[in-house]
């Protein structure tokens, strides 16, 4: 469905050039929940922004349904680290913007907004302004916006990293429910092993800069119980692989 063909990306930093990604080859299958794990500076955010069409790679090509990705578009809904809601618009207005150019009646547009708000549990907050919402609620609106786009592919760039642990756990569960219900393909970037294992059907590890794919794990059917033996086993394996691939200065997130 989504393919990364020999993706490399460099960006200038003063007089030097920094290589963020180096030779990434990857295929994301339809209906898959792929989590990409990596330490800070591994280029995972750059990779997902390339998939979103927000960054043009220095080399290589990303293709969605065999069509080259050249710019952002409605076929790739993205949820960012910050909710990026328009502060002067209510929740409903923020969502209404998604349907601005949809050739359906206003009544249907409003129905769709209610449906998606119901799905993320924010039905009663449609007239709230972003500053009246908590961080978790804002991120839920951001997810609702992405869902409303009805894209086959959902790109998520550490969407819960700015939230407290409890909110993050709850949103992880909600996201899994939504994915099971809608069956969209999800590419999810995180620096938390636990989050990657809880959510993903497959987890890839990126090395520290320049980011390369180190290894992949099939993480289907691990369940949500992080103390269960299969979960712990794979957790330890990823943990030790990270220690090997990344410099010792890297601090692992242990929860």
């Amino acid at each position, binding site marked *: 469905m989504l393919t990364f063909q020999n993706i490399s990306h460099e960006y200038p930093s003063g007089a030097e050039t920094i290589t963020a990604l180096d030779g990434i080859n990857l295929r994301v299958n339809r209906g898959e929940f792929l989590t990409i794990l990596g330490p800070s500076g591994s280029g995972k955010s750059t990779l997902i922004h390339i998939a979103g069409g927000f960054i043009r790679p220095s080399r290589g090509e990303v293709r969605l349904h065999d069509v080259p990705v050249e710019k952002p*578009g409605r076929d790739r809904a993205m949820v960012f680290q910050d909710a*990026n809601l328009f502060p002067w618009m209510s929740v409903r207005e923020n969502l209404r913007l998604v349907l*601005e*150019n949809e050739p359906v009646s206003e009544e249907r547009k409003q129905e769709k907004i209610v449906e998606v708000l119901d799905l993320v549990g924010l039905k009663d907050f449609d007239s709230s*302004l972003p500053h009246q919402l908590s961080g978790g609620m804002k991120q839920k609106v951001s997810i609702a916006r992405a869902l409303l*786009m009805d894209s086959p592919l959902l790109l998520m760039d550490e969407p819960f990293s700015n939230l407290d642990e409890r909110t993050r756990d709850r949103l992880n569960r909600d996201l899994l429910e939504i994915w099971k219900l809608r069956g969209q393909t999800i590419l999810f970037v995180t620096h938390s092993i636990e989050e990657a294992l809880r959510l993903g059907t497959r987890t890839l590890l990126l090395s520290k800069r320049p980011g390369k794919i180190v290894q992949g794990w099939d993480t289907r059917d691990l369940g949500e119980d992080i103390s269960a033996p299969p979960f712990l086993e794979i957790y330890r394996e990823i943990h030790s692989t990270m220690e090997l691939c990344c410099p010792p200065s890297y601090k692992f997130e242990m929860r």
Partner: protein
Amino acid sequence: MKTPLKGRSLKGSLPGLLLLILIWILIALYQREIQDKPFPYPWEAVQSIFITPAAHTALLIHAGVSLLRWIGGYGIALIAGISWGIAIWRFPLFQRLTEPLVSTIQLIPGMAWIPITLILFGLGNGSTIFMIAMTSLPPVVVNTFTGMQQLDPGLLKIPPMLELTEKQRLTRIIIPGALPSIIGGLRIGAGNGFRVLISAEMVVGSSLGLGYSMFQSRWTLDYASAFGALLLIIVIGLIFEQLIFLPLEHRILEKRGL
């Protein structure tokens, strides 16, 4: 830029205004009783607004004419300034070409436009309106542009993802996003324009306008009327500040949780 709104509300300004009136009365008392000068009391100034000697034009008519001139010049600055700011933001070449021009215009004091405006428009309304427009324009252009430039880059990722048209991006995202800064520029521009209006009317205006009326009072020795004109200038300024800009700014910032 966040402004302390509470302190600037009409109610908040009342003690300051009362103090001003008290100082005025004390100065007038001193000037009249000790120095023997015809310094008018506040009530005489107020009276001059409503009661006009037969040979003179009523102050309220002068005020109306001044207001119309200001609306004309400021209206031009508003439309041209916002359009110019948008164009600078949208077209880098236009920015390179015209940004130095805005900076130059900004450096010119209002009254320094007199030689140019007299050549271009002669004495009368055209000159006054031109001077108001030229002094109101720069802050509107600069604030429109900087407001757009300082928009959160994260927000700018959304319109291309939603495939909004250029017009939708501008009218739904960019302009509303820059609105607090644009309003700030409009307020500064309004003040600039109003100040130069009074000065311009003293020099290039025709036989009407608050500035002209104040200037004339030195020949007619009608000092109460000059103070009346000054009071009208303050009242007009307060109306714009308290009834238009302040509620507008308050509403915009409140919606953003600021």
